[in-house]
């Protein structure tokens, strides 16, 4: 399974900056530490491309009826520059040589005129293990929890 993000021009060397690289392999099963609020026990999710609705992905919990639509944020926000804390990177085993995968949760709950993505709280994924967590960015104040997907 490969991602389809547009490759950013500049790849930041600094450890805390992480950007999506085109062609990175996606893990099929995610282990989301702490679950997703309010479902703290929903940890195991299957990640699949939404075949009838690209570029969306879907994460489907394997233990309960729960799913979310996700998107690679760099597709619609190419200048997105998330900074991750050492706390989060260490918790997921993302060492300096590992390029993490970043996905944003898409929120359709306010209707089709107000579909948004959470840029301040993305899902950070270790691509080798599927170990993931919804994190708060170090530079969260730079971004919206409700960034309009279609301007």
């Amino acid at each position: 399974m490969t991602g389809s993000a547009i490759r950013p021009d500049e790849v930041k060397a600094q450890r805390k900056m992480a950007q999506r690289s085109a062609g990175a392999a996606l893990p099929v099963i995610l282990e989301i530490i702490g679950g997703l609020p309010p479902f703290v026990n929903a940890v195991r999710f299957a990640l699949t491309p939404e075949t009838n609705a690209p570029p969306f992905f879907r994460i489907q919990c394997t233990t309960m009826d729960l799913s979310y639509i996700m998107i690679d944020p760099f597709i619609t926000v190419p200048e997105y520059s998330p900074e991750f804390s050492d706390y989060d990177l260490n918790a997921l085993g993302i060492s300096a040589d590992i390029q993490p995968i970043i996905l944003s949760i898409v929120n359709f709950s306010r209707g089709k005129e107000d579909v948004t993505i959470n840029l301040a709280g993305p899902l950070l994924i270790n691509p080798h293990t599927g170990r993931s967590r919804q994190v708060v960015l170090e530079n969260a104040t730079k971004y919206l929890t409700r960034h309009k997907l279609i301007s």
Partner: protein
Amino acid sequence: MLVLTREVGEFMLIGDSIEIRVLRIDGQQVRLGIVAPRESSIVRGELIEDIRAETTSAARPEEHLIANIASQIKAKVSVIVVTVQSS
């Protein structure tokens, strides 16, 4: 929840290495100093609550909206790609 009352200048220790000290009180505002290991996560509660609320409402999305929004994004992304290539 452990509830403590502290005066200005007093502090409390959480675990071995996290200290929270009351530095100043100004009307409704309390200025706190936090000493914690560099790798600790310290986040304002409002931001956590905002993210929790957003994530909660995003669960189990309306299926009929997904394909429609996806096609709108695809149209927009194609435009971005063309711009980059022609510059």
